[in-house]
């Protein structure tokens, strides 16, 4: 029934609320496909050396992994239309094994494509205004932002037009394609919460208004995870939006020239900022900016207007909050009430709600979605949310504009398709990298750890009682699973060829960002569920009524957790 309804709606809905390519955008992605097709052909003909093809394929998101290549498809700032998602589903079916992995950079990773098929995949992506440009390599990566952009009440302004501006500026930037290391930018537009983790990015942009009411950005620099996790420092309290691109150029030009290139583990901008100190770094950036400020790259108001025109509001109906059927259902169904409480969020318009389709179903790798699920999610988007979705940094999908009087229907449909795990923000809503099951870099598997934790904490009442905990798992020091900023972080390490897991506590990625502290010696894989249980027990025993896990940790420190985790059984 859902599918029939979708067909009717889909054929009559043509309006878009996302950025739309014009001839220039389309030409660029098509020329990129042709370029990569030729590079792949030359590589397969031995005309291009392995080491030369490496950076070229990485700049197109193509890794050669443990068992097969991995292709990372860009989903700029997490926005994807139902039409695009349907093609992605189709691609995973025809070129892969019928599933994909949504990443913390809001992208989609295919785990089993054939190298020689990648040009064809890219060509298909280009037909729906998609690509894999700069999803890897030592260049500026996909800019990320809040998955609730444009639909929450308290944002300073919709960050997506600025993300699109940054996307265009960073795409094929001639000067910054061979930086010392990868470069990640995130944008946040709310005071109440930072869902984009801007403080742990190479550049974090905090959209704000100055006292005169002008829009600009507080600019943070030098945050990052990986081997040496650091919280970013403020380089400027306010850069007017017109100057954003010249200021970014100035920062990255300083980094490109002075960032370390002798050791890849010390090559991120955070190491340069730390080595110079923020004062000296700022001085150098300002000196560079003096030359760039006011040049042609200054963004005119007409461009902000043009970009903003793509992210218009859909035609919301005049609705009332909390319609009677919703109130009744909340009272009557505990399952629905839980899902509503956890997986839906306040919308700026009365009568609407933001809904997260969870990709954290027990038994499924966190962030993974099957082709069927992608198609179902696309259908749900068409039926309930104006045909668009967002990928969240926590590896879930979001329907941003759902009518409250349709929530019950949507919940039923979400349940049918494995999207209704009502655990958003709870312990089992884990961030998890693909780990040693797929990734050539990983020291250890991460998916079985996620499974073990899901099994240990399979009681919903208990999970709700524990409350909000960010648990993040990375299979190696590269920290794709953001373990440093998990309230509980788990890191896979290699000990003489065996997989062990180091646990850290107290990390956070929001406005109160902090790097977790290592609990102590690492644990064997089979111990992890038990160890996390002991840690949670300490929290439950020590918490005050209003404290979340992170609050209790900050109050009592690591010691009691350490004692419990390493206590010998009597």
């Amino acid at each position, binding site marked *: 029934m859902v599918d029939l309804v979708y067909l009717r709606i889909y054929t009559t809905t043509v309006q878009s609320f996302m950025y739309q390519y014009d001839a220039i955008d389309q030409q660029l992605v098509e020329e990129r496909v042709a370029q990569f097709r030729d*590079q792949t052909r030359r590589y397969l003909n031995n005309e291009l050396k392995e080491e030369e093809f490496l950076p070229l394929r990485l700049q197109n998101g193509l890794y050669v992994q443990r068992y097969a290549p991995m292709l990372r498809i860009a989903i700029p700032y997490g926005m994807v239309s139902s039409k695009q998602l349907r093609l992605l589903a189709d691609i995973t079916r025809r070129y892969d094994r019928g599933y994909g992995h949504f990443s913390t950079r809001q992208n989609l990773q295919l785990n089993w494509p054939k190298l020689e098929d990648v040009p064809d995949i890219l060509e298909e992506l280009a037909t729906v205004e998609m690509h894999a440009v700069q999803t890897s390599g030592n260049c500026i990566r996909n800019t990320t932002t809040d998955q609730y952009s444009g639909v929450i009440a308290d944002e300073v302004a919709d960050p997506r037009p600025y993300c699109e501006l940054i996307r265009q500026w960073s795409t094929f930037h*001639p000067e910054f394609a061979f930086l010392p290391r990868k470069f990640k930018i995130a944008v946040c537009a709310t005071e109440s919460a930072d869902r984009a983790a801007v403080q742990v990015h190479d550049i974090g942009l905090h959209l704000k208004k100055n006292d005169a009411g002008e829009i600009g950005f507080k600019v943070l620099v030098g945050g990052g995870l990986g081997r040496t996790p650091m919280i970013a420092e403020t380089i400027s309290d306010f850069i007017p939006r017109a100057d954003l691109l010249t200021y970014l150029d100035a920062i990255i030009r300083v980094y490109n020239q002075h960032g370390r290139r002798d050791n890849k583990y010390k090559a991120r901008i955070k190491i340069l900022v730390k080595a110079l100190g923020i004062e000296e770094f700022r001085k150098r950036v300002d000196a560079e900016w003096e030359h760039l400020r006011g040049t042609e*790259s200054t963004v005119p108001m007409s*461009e902000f207007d043009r970009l903003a025109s793509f992210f218009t509001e859909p035609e919301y109906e005049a609705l009332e909050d909390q319609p009677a059927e919703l109130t009744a259902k909340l009272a009557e169904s505990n399952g629905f009430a839980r899902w509503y409480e956890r997986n839906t969020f306040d919308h700026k318009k009365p009568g609407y709600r933001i809904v997260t389709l969870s990709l954290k179903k027990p038994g499924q790798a966190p962030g993974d979605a099957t082709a069927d699920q992608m198609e179902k999610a696309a259908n749900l988007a068409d039926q309930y949310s104006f045909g668009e979705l967002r990928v969240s940094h926590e590896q879930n999908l979001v329907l941003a504009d759902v009518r409250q009087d349709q929530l019950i229907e949507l919940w039923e449909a979400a349940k049918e398709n494995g999207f209704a795990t009502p655990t958003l923000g709870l312990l089992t809503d884990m961030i998890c990298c693909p780990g040693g099951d797929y990734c050539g870099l990983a020291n250890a598997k991460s998916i079985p750890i996620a499974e073990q934790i899901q099994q240990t904490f399979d009681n919903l009442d208990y999970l709700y009682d524990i409350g909000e905990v960010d648990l993040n798992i990375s299979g190696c020091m590269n920290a794709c699973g953001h373990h440093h900023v998990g309230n509980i972080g788990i890191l896979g390490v290699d000990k003489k060829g065996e997989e062990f897991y180091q646990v850290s506590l107290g990390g956070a990625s929001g406005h109160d960002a902090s790097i977790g502290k290592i609990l102590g010696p690492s644990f064997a894989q089979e111990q992890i569920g038990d160890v996390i249980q002991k840690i949670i027990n300490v929290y439950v025993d020590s918490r005050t009524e209003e404290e979340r896990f992170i609050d209790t940790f900050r109050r009592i420190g690591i010691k009691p957790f350490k004692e419990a985790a390493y206590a010998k059984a009597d």
Partner: protein
Amino acid sequence: MPKLIKNGEIVDNTYVWQQDADATATENAIVPMQKWLDNQETIGKVAGIWIDAGEGVEPLADVDLSQFDVIGVNFPSFMDGRGFSYARLLRERLNYDGEIRALGNFMADQQGYLIRCGVNSFEFAEDVNLDIALTLNKPFSVAYQGDVADPRPVFLRRG
């Protein structure tokens, strides 16, 4: 005569890239920047200088660059992108309008970006087929950012 690509054509390479600072500087030599700076009173006429990765263009701030026919930018590795900024700064900051030559271990596939940063000649390693390399120098016919050839970003060019 060795060949190179200059302004989109395969031509004779009439200069000699002197990597060794102890080599005798000749009129057709591209000498190390630091050597030239240290000996500018005595070194006599040379074709130009070359900048190594890590040296930057700041030492040239007060030098009359118009005396050089060529300024080389060395790429110790094709992963080392410092030269992209150096070329751009030579053009946009120091207003050098002579030849900027990519030297060392860069790739044919990097020509498009290098050209946009102001490089206009490419001294490839001997094993590179220049006819093929020449086909790779303009992968894109449009660009989002301003560059050395056209400082206007796309938002000043969209119809």
